[in-house]
């Protein structure tokens, strides 16, 4: 069982967010382009804003109900929107075979739009086509000689979103979303 062939991917592009609202709006701006069986792989550290982004996607799709982190449940299903919205979080999984356990591969081909937090945990288990969104926290150099430990909540990092389309659908999504955000990919 080897998966050595890497599907074609388009050049990546990036954008930034300075607040939770920004992050959510970014998710909402992707939603109009999502089609059944599209998969968005969300990568990024704890606290990077993955759930916040997913919340925006749900809003953009018109899903009902509040979107909270699916870490414990692994999959939360949100109906009522233009498409069913499957919100995965693979954080709690340690082994690739557990993906079968939760019927991950069956679910992402079930006609819904899926956003997969920690979807990069299992590189061999990536679908043939997907949109890769990688969120990195960039801390501004404001921590100059901070000695008071009491200010742990003062640092507000910028979130950098790096986007790359993989496979036919992924590339298409990447292009459409970039265009909608006014980002020129012909550089």
């Amino acid at each position, binding site marked *: 069982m080897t998966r050595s062939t890497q599907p074609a991917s388009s050049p990546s592009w990036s954008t930034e967010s300075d607040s939770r609202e920004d992050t959510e709006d970014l998710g909402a701006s992707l939603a109009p382009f999502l089609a059944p069986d599209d998969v968005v792989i969300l990568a990024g550290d704890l*606290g990077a804003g993955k759930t916040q982004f997913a919340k925006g996607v749900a809003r953009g799709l018109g899903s009902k*109900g509040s979107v*909270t982190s699916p870490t414990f*449940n692994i999959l939360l299903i949100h109906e009522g929107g233009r498409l069913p919205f499957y919100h995965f979080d693979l954080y709690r999984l340690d*082994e690739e075979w557990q993906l079968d*356990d*939760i*019927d991950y*591969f069956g679910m992402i081909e079930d006609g819904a739009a899926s956003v997969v937090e920690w979807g990069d945990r299992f590189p061999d288990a990536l679908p043939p086509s997907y949109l890769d969104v990688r969120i990195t926290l960039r801390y501004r150099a404001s921590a100059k000689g901070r000695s008071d430990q009491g200010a*742990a909540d003062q640092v507000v990092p910028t979130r950098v979103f790096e986007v790359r389309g993989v496979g036919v659908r992924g590339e298409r999504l990447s292009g459409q979303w970039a265009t909608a955000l006014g980002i020129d990919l012909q550089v």
Partner: protein
Amino acid sequence: MTEAFAGIVLAFDTATAQLALACGRIPDSREPLEMLASSDEPAYRRANSVLLDRSTELLASLGLAPADVACVVCGRGPGSFTGVRIGVATAKGVACGLRVPLFGVSTLDAVAWNLWEKGVRGLVGVVGDAMRGEVYPVRYRIAATGPQRIDADEVSKPTEVAAHWDMGLDESPLLCGDALGKHRDALVGGFAKLGIHATVADEPLWLPTGRGLLLAFEARRRAGLLGVGAPGSLLPVYTRLSDAEEHERERLGLDASGTLPTNGVADSRALEGVLLRPLSVNDIPDLLELEGRSADEVSTSERLTAEHLEAALGSKGHTWWVARLQGVLVGYAGLAVTHGTAQLTRVVTDPDHRDLGIAERLFSRVVHDALDLGATSVSAVTLGKDCGVDAFLGKMGMDRSSDTAEGSRLWGGALPLERMASTSEGAMVATPVVAGMGLGNHLLPDAGSAVRRPLILAIESSCDETAAAVIDGSDTLYADIIASQVDFHARFGGVVPEIASRKHTEAIVGVVEEAFARAGEELARVEGAGLAPSSGRVPGDPRPLAWSDLDAIAVTVGPGLVGALVVGLAFAKGASWATGLPLIAVNHLEGHLYANRLIDPDIKPPLVALLVSGGNTMLVHVRDWGDYRILGETLDDAVGEAFDKVSKALGLGYPGGPILSRLAKEGDSTAIDFPRAMLHSHDLRFSLSGLKTAVITYIHAENAEGRAIDLPNLAASFQQAVIDVLVAKATDAVRQTGVREFCMGGGVSANPELRHEIALAMRRRGVRVTLPLASSCTDNAGMIGAVARERFGAGRFEALTIEALPGMDIEEPY
């Protein structure tokens, strides 16, 4: 013994988009099966809702009813994971409910047998859809006598199937199977590349049929390959097993997936777990046989005899348990309680099954019983040279008190043992099936009390835990069993994944049987336990509970993980169909609310409840039982999740709650000033991702500055930040609603500091507080039973078409 049955056979398969269903009859165990009727229909992802009604219709068309079924046959896949799981769990429920054998058949074999019946002969490739761009390819050579399987089940890329099969150029296979829908070109193209012309069968032949399923079953029956048909041992076909599991199978001498017999899927792949039971008279010969083979165990000087054991069975103060693995007695343990001390008589395991943790489980079981028998301490004597037994007792939390001149060692310990106590925090669970876990003794029936109807079996499988409970009309729990999945993992050489929802499929039968056995024992203590006249149960009868003793079956339908929920639900529906007992659906979150009522029957709405667990953080206004309004919930992470993530970020273990709360005891909660998110938001919503981010940021910053992190201080400061917000919002909620009662639920409500502070804050306001037992905060089935009892009274029963509701809302009445 295996094929010596006759009667009506019901067969179904839900592994593909087609619901395949058939009914046959075996007139006599030596005679061939007769096909009676079949029905196949598309049921894409609807199998759970239509399977049982279709079965009823099929049987009815033959003038038959569920009770006429003498044997169940189920497609084991490979196929859609959720689909197979629904089929297998339903089949288990039906077979258990009817107390008939259950046999598994390969879904791909069923396709091949259907082709045979349709007159196809020669080389055939059945290629099932494995999702993620992969397929399950298996070759068959179909002769006049039937298909002969050439390959074992495996996973492959569609383009690689042809090369993999490595056929001569004269071989031109006929392809079928549901993978053709997605991968026809890739499959056919793969053959063309090798100069082979592969033909594609007509589409109606791609899927398994009921008749094909029965034919495949019949072939295995005629070949004597059925096995015993124990419902608990049937498992779906897993083709992507972890290495750890493969190793375990090899170690146990079971078939590795690559060396399966060519005539089908080996049933021995269905690894049956070790089942613990109280000793019965029938176990005595096997026990004495093992006793004869083992000399080096915990023992008194004299050998056990049949008379000794029979006397122990009949007298109070003795408890004996046996462990059986696939029917074979592999261990036993016993103790006697006198004057408050439990004297351990034996803990013996078969030398061939030493590392399965059987001894620990047996030990826990008899010691649990000792507590029930009023023991406050346990003691043991070990003889001869130290051969591991002493180490075992030490590991189980006993202390070596003294050595005698004769060279024997005395061991003792106060009950409950430290090690047992730690199980409530989930850190060290010694038993996979923890009988009575989460039960205070006061919840057990008092001797002399009577069973009050209705008697309900409740099943819970919404996330990580498979659980079953038996409860009566006065909220008395006769059994409350949780199959802690930790033990399954411990078996697999130290790989301890945090979740494994498919373990539900493995555990469900054992957990329900355990609940029945336990409830039977408890009922025996209750005077006037003459339940349904049909059961013939009389006071003092220690037999396991029977379905006929029950009034209803209850099950969690949501919210939760869909792949986990469907197992409990499908099993419960199957059992309901088989037994005719009504089915009751329960909301998992409502269960957490009712857990409080099990502690304090006087708790009365209106009240406010704080539900805090790994998946939920919400304040609920309970205006009345069944009438709930969410006052506020988390906007992002749940509290338990925040604990887990901080614990993981610090490189500490899982679950994070107990770990951090233990650390916090040593720390200064004012050391680091973490944000109290939304403390002043003037609403009752929570946000924990900000706090989580602040902690992670803090860790990064400290690391960057090269400072060591004071773990106890960090844990205490983090925990305090969480508690401050929870307490503040909870008291706001109580003030806003004006209620005089408050309660909690969910795993995090076991946190001692949170319990302490919230109780203090509420009492200061004159609000009555009820807290669930720390050990029953986590998911359990007793709480599901408590809700079900009320729904039973209101006549809220479900049709067998009900499906799992992973996103079930607590505010919506159901």
